[in-house]
Each structure stands twice: as structure tokens, then as C-alpha cells.
């Protein structure tokens, strides 16, 4: 048992090693770098499976391996690894999906000149994410969290010669940093209150009863329990990383990176980190549930943010024309679902949806990548169309992903995980609103995905690029096929009638009794969305690339607003950007007039004293010295021949002088 925990650190270490190899390999070493990356991921996958088997033996235990990172005198900072079903499931998912994305990248990035750099960054990304998963200390988690941010920056900006990509990378990094500041503050506060950052530490960890009790017992500003305040600060980090409203703006722009990166960010690594963080510190987030007379519970905020994000993402996705952006906003929306599930107290349901979503969203992104690769980087769905024939494998697998995402009944994984969340929302006693929002988003999801598939794969090809598209090589289609199988199969580990996964994660997990009504309702809503999408986009396929969207003709202003993402980017530019400019101007004025004036005044003072000094000097003191200095001048001219002005000469003389001196001392000392 213990030996497995000791193996845990290898899971992130191997991809890290692969990244190091990639960093040191010259550009020609394509085989070596990609081989190292894929090999490391394969071994990590094997280890993860082994770890999962071990974790399933006793799902309630948190096996830990803690060690002192460094001592500073009497205090020591401790890090550690933890093994529980949450870690194990996530590790298997990340390594598996990551491996398939790596293999897909072999084909997708084949023509890129910086192939080795790409695989180096990919490995770093995977390593950071895996490190985040196995961390048993908020500090270690934070370190890996920042590494994930760094790797995403590098990968989104991989084609940095495109200004849009460079800007998107910067945006992603800075936007998530805003949330990270909250996380950092929460971490510091937590350390201040409990004296530890370990999650589980044999009764002394911050997620164990002693620490939680003391955190709940104290209150802080506004009558909040300390645990609520810390929980909300930590949640800020999750909001940034998981693209939740109002920090969602970076996620769609992250599409500027290569498509495998989008798949990795949206499915396995980056955005999953936020949801995972909240699930990991769930005991802390939910600690204040026992308190009755507090202004707000941490989880209520989480549920509200999640519901807003789910609705917002689904709405905006309807108005997008770029195949990757539609998928990006669907990710935003699905992440909102997960946060909603966390907020209503069903964290196993959130993790279940995270796992199924990882598979089908990776599938969808890689499918989109396959389309883009075949259509010579044409991403506008208005200019695609008719790809059903030439790209049969991509079409079928993409269809599987789409059906899983909209929650097509019974067969597909998305259905079961979405059901789990809907049931949890149904059982939430605080407010029924999240349930209504989630149900509405179900319709929207079915609608926009139908639109996407109809526009891309049906009708006639509407551009030369789409006309000449043909199926991609096996390195790209085989991962698609594997993911398609998973998009179906993974759902059966956590169905409403047999929630094995949820029970494993949390033995106290209860399915809310709602009879068949809720399930029938959601099936009906999916069917409605599908039918609506087919009526508008499927029955009469788009004829020309320039023809307006049917929705656009019906409600031009609404459609334009959705297309412009409801103006949030502009809003931020007008408020935050302006504020920043104003602060810069203020600082400039302060610098130029206030501080500069002060400096000038001091300088005047100095000059004045200098004048006084000089008068005293020249008349009183100098006379005698002038005579003496004439003599020195003669000697100085003699010495100045040695001054070549060349530093090396001086240094050499100093060194030789040193040797001579030491020799003198040593010989003299022996006498």
C-alpha cells in the first residue's frame, strides 16, 4: 500500500523529464522528443491505472506521503502527495486523454517547424497538471497551478508571430493571474489560521476535522466564517482557471493556439484544474453549511457563478461562426454545469461530468482539428459544409461527441453525467433557479451543436478548401475512434441507477429521488433542441458562404449581440482598461511634477553648498597644495605609460601580483 504512494510522484515526474529532454533536443530531433513525450505519458498512464486499482481497495482512505521541503530553523515547510479515488480517477483521465492528444499532435503538427518545442511544452503542460492532481499541499498545488498557467501561456502563444495568438496568450495568462491572486491570498490566510497547508496529515491537515472546526468557529469581516472567506478566495483561483463568469474572457481567445492545445486546455488540463481544486478543498468549502446565521455560504456563491456561466456560455455559443469558438463557449457552459454541481453539494457529480466531458470534448476538439487540418485551416463554419462524404471517420466520431455533449439519452456518457447534475440541482433546497437555468441550457446546447454539425458536415461544400478536403492519416483518426468509444462507454460507471463512481468518490452520495419525471423532461428538452436545430439549419442547408444566418434574419440585433459575446470584452476594455490608463497617467503626473520637483529642490540645495565650499576651498586651502602637486604630476606622467586602458592587462597584473604575494607569504612563513 505504502509503496504505491511512493510511486505517485513518478506520474508527474516522467512527463517533466520528457519536457526536459525536449528542451535540450535540437530542432531536428523530432523522433526523440515526441517519442519521449509519448513514452512518458504511456508509462504515467500505466502507473495511474495501478494507482487507481490501489485506491479502489479502500475508497475512503487518504493515503499520504508528506515530507519536509525545507527547514528554516525551527519552522519547516512540508509538501506531500495524496492518493485517494479523486486523484486516481483524474490521473487516469488526464494521462489517457493526454496520450491520445499527443498522438493526434504527431499528425496535426507534422508540418510545423517547431515540432520539438511543441512537444516539450505539451509534456510540461501534462506534468504540471499531474503534479497538481497528486499534490497533498495547497502550496505544491499552487506551484503546479502556476506551471499550468505558464505552459498554457506558452502553448496558446505557440504561433507567436501571429499578433492575435500573442495577445490571446497574454490575455489568458493575465486573466487567470487575477484569480490566482485570490488563491494566493486564501492560501496565506489558511496558513496563518491553521499553521499548515497539507490537506491530509493524520488529523492535522487543513481538510480534517480539527482545523475545519476552528476555521468555522471564528468569524471575520461581515459576519463571514473564516472558512467561508478562505473558501471564496480559493474559489477566485478556480474562477480564473476554469473560465467562469466574469473571468471567462480568456477561454475563447485561447483558440488561437494549435487545435491539440485547445483540446488539452478544454478537456484534460487547464480548465479541469479549477473544478478539481474546488472538489479537492470541498470539505473546506462546505464547512460552513452547518452554520445557520451567516450572511452567505461559500457553496451558494459557487452555485450562482456556475449557473450564470452555464447560461452565458450556451447563449453565446449560438451566435458564433468559428467551429472552435462554438466548442469553446460550450466548454464555458459545461464548466458552469460542473461548478453548479459543486455548489449544490454534489461534488462527485461534478467530477463525473468532468471526466465524461474530458473525453467527449477532447473528441470534439480533435474532430474539429481534423476538419481544420483537412480544410487547410478554414475554421469558419459558413465556408465549410458537405464534409460528411469525404471525411467519414471524422464525421461519425464527431457525431458521437456531439450526441454525448447534448446528452442524447441512454447510450451516451454526457447524458448520465448531466442527469447526475440535474438531479443534484433538483435536490438543492436553497433555490430552484439553478435547475431551471440548467434545463434551459440543455435546450440551447442541443440547438447550437445541431447547428454546428449541420453547417459543417451537411449541405454542399461552400469553399474551395472544403471542396478539396479529404480524410486524415491514421495518427489522427485512430485517437478519434478511441475517444468516440470512450465518449459512449465512460458514462456507464455512474448512471442514475447505479452511481458506482459517485459512491466511490463519496460513500455518502445520495441520488435525489425524483422519479422518472426529471429524466423524461430533460430527454424531451434535448429532443426539442435537436428538432429546433434541424428545422432551422438542417431542412434547408445553407446555400452560399455569404448567406445570412437564419437566426440573423429573424432577430439581427440579438444575433449580433451573441456573436459579440454580449460585449464583455468591450466592457472590460472600457472599464478596467480605462482605469489602468488613468492610473498610469496619475502616476506619470506624480512622477513628473511632485517627485521631480523634490529632486530638483534637493539638487539646488546641493549646488548651493557646493558653491560655498568651493569659495572656501580655492582661496584658503589650495595655495599650498598646488606647489606639491606639481611634483606629483611629474611622477604621474612616468607611471601613466603603464596605463594601457585595457582592462585585461590590469586584471592580469593583479592576478600575477596575487600569486607572487602568496608565494612570498608561503616561503616566508616556512622560515
Amino acid at each position: 500500500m505504502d509503496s504505491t504512494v511512493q510511486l505517485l510522484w513518478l506520474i508527474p515526474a516522467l512527463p517533466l523529464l520528457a519536457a526536459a529532454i525536449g528542451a535540450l533536443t535540437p530542432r531536428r530531433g523530432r523522433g526523440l522528443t515526441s517519442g519521449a513525450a509519448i513514452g512518458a505519458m504511456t508509462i504515467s498512464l500505466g502507473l495511474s491505472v495501478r494507482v487507481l486499482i490501489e485506491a479502489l481497495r479502500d475508497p475512503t482512505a487518504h493515503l499520504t506521503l508528506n515530507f519536509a521541503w525545507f527547514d528554516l530553523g525551527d519552522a519547516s515547510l512540508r509538501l506531500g502527495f495524496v492518493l485517494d479515488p479523486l486523484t486516481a480517477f483524474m490521473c487516469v483521465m488526464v494521462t489517457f486523454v493526454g496520450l491520445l492528444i499527443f498522438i493526434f499532435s504527431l499528425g496535426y503538427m507534422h508540418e510545423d517547424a517547431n515540432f520539438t518545442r511543441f512537444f516539450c511544452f505539451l509534456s510540461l503542460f501534462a506534468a504540471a497538471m499531474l503534479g497538481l492532481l497528486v499534490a497533498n499541499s495547497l502550496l505544491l498545488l499552487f506551484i503546479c497551478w502556476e506551471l499550468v498557467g505558464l505552459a498554457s501561456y506558452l502553448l496558446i502563444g505557440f504561433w507567436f508571430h501571429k499578433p492575435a495568438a500573442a495577445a490571446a496568450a497574454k490575455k489568458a495568462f493575465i486573466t487567470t493571474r487575477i484569480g490566482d491572486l485570490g488563491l494566493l491570498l486564501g492560501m496565506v490566510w489558511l496558513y496563518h489560521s491553521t499553521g499548515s497547508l497539507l490537506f491530509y496529515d493524520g488529523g492535522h491537515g487543513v481538510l480534517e476535522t480539527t482545523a475545519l472546526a476552528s476555521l468555522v468557529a471564528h468569524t471575520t469581516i461581515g459576519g463571514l466564517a473564516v472558512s467561508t472567506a478562505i473558501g471564496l478566495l480559493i474559489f477566485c483561483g478556480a474562477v480564473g482557471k476554469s473560465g467562469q463568469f466574469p473571468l471567462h474572457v480568456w477561454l475563447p481567445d485561447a483558440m488561437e493556439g494549435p487545435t491539440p492545445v485547445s483540446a488539452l486546455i478544454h478537456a484534460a488540463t487547464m480548465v479541469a484544474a479549477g473544478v478539481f481544486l474546488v472538489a479537492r478543498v470541498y470539505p473546506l468549502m462546505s464547512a460552513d453549511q452547518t452554520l445557520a446565521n451567516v450572511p452567505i455560504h461559500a457553496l451558494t456563491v459557487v452555485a450562482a457563478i456556475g449557473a450564470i456561466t452555464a447560461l452565458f456560455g450556451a447563449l453565446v455559443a449560438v451566435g458564433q461562426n468559428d467551429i472552435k469558438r462554438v466548442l469553446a463557449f460550450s466548454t464555458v457552459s459545461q464548466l458552469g454545469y460542473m461548478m453548479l454541481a459543486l455548489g449544490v453539494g454534489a461534488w462527485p457529480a461534478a467530477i463525473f461530468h468532468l471526466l465524461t466531458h474530458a473525453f467527449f470534448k477532447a473528441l470534439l476538439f480533435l474532430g474539429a482539428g481534423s476538419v481544420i487540418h483537412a480544410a487547410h485551416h478554414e475554421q469558419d463554419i459558413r465556408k465549410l459544409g458537405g464534409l460528411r462524404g469525404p471525411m467519414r471517420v471524422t464525421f461519425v466520431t464527431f457525431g458521437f461527441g456531439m450526441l454525448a455533449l447534448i446528452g442524447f439519452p441512454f447510450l451516451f456518457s454526457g447524458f448520465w453525467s448531466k442527469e447526475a447534475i440535474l438531479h443534484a440541482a433538483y435536490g438543492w433546497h436553497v433555490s430552484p433557479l439553478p435547475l431551471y437555468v440548467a434545463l434551459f441550457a440543455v435546450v440551447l446546447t442541443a440547438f447550437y451543436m445541431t447547428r454546428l454539425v449541420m453547417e459543417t458536415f451537411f449541405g454542399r461544400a461552400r469553399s474551395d478548401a472544403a471542396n478539396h478536403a479529404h480524410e486524415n492519416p491514421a495518427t489522427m483518426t485512430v485517437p478519434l475512434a478511441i475517444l468516440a468509444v470512450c465518449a459512449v462507454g465512460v458514462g456507464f460507471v455512474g448512471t442514475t441507477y447505479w452511481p458506482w463512481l459517485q459512491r466511490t468518490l463519496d460513500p455518502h452520495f445520495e441520488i435525489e429521488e425524483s422519479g422518472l419525471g426529471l429524466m423524461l423532461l430533460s430527454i424531451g428538452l434535448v429532443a426539442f433542441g435537436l428538432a429546433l436545430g434541424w428545422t432551422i439549419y438542417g431542412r434547408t442547408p445553407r446555400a452560399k458562404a455569404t448567406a445570412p444566418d437564419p437566426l440573423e434574419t429573424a432577430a439581427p440585433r440579438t444575433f449580433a449581440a451573441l456573436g459579440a459575446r454580449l460585449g464583455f470584452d468591450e466592457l472590460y476594455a472600457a472599464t478596467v482598461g480605462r482605469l489602468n490608463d488613468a492610473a498610469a497617467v496619475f502616476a506619470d503626473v506624480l512622477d513628473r511634477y511632485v517627485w521631480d520637483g523634490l529632486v530638483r529642490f534637493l539638487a539646488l540645495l546641493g549646488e548651493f553648498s557646493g558653491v560655498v565650499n568651493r569659495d572656501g576651498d580655492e582661496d584658503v586651502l589650495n595655495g599650498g597644495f598646488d606647489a606639491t602637486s606639481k611634483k606629483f604630476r611629474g611622477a604621474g606622467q612616468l607611471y601613466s605609460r603603464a596605463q594601457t586602458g585595457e582592462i585585461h592587462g590590469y586584471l592580469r597584473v593583479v592576478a600575477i601580483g596575487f600569486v607572487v604575494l602568496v608565494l612570498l607569504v608561503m616561503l616566508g612563513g616556512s622560515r
Partner: protein
Amino acid sequence: MSPALIIIALVTLAAAAVAMTLRNLIHSALLLIGSWAGVAAFYLWAGAQFVAFGQVLVYVGAVSMIVLFAVLLTRRSRADLAVAPDSLGRALGALLVGGAVLGVLFGAILSSPLDVARQPAPTVTVRALGHELMGPHAAALLVAAVILTVALLGAVVIAATDEEKNRPPGRSAPPNDVA
């Protein structure tokens, strides 16, 4: 013998030696960062954690950045990172002088009575360090602070462009070199 020390020493020395012989300035700088990290590892090995972190922060973190900036600011074109080869005669002279210094130092070490008994590292807590710095060494601390401030201002003054007055105010000087 202490294998950890020998490994640290070899890695550090190798990195430093290669850095001093490479022709690509960027590579040199990167290798030197590795060498500084090796010195930090030595401090950790010797039990001086605080100094090790200071070394990492100042050298691996800060000085390395200044060096990289200096390298990038003083190249003329993209291909200009390689340094022109230095004269062989001077290199030989340098090796001769360096060898002499090395010989003298080794001789001094070998001939000195240095057989100190193996003992545990002295422990020094951050609290104790703080007391030392603010107590007996407060004057030195203040002087160091003044030196750092003066150096900062001096560096700005030296590196600032002279033609500041001819430019519209509020803008930073454009890079004086088209890379």
C-alpha cells in the same frame, strides 16, 4: 568522502567552464545560471538554507535576468549572438595566469592545517539571523541598503539615454538599434 558534494562541485564547475568557452552569449548566460544554481545547491548541502534561497533569488532570479537583458540589448542583429573568436595568445596567457593562481591556491590549502573534525552543521534560524542583522550588524545593513539604492540609481543614470530632452515627454526611449 561526500559524494553529494563532489557531484555538486563537478556539475557547477563543468557548467562554469563550458559557459566561459562557448561562443554563443545566450548559451553562456544560461549555463552560468545553472552554475549559480549549483552554488545554491552547495549552500543547501552545507546547511545554510537561507543563503541558498538568497542565492537563488538574487543570482538565479535577478542577476540572470539583467544579464540576459544586457545580452539582448547589446546585439546588433539576430545573428549577432555569437562572439567573434578571441585571440589565442591571450587565451593562453589567461590559462597560464589562471593555472598559476590555481596552483598557488591548492598549495596553500594543502599546506594549511585544515584537519577539522567532522561535525554537525551549525543551525541558524531565520529569527536568529534577523536578530543578528538588526542588532550587531544594523550599521552594515544600513550601509548595504544605501549601496543598493545608490547602485540602482547609478545604473539608471549610466544606462539612460543622453538625448532624453529631444524626445516627446512621457515616452520611453525607443530601442536605439534596429534588431
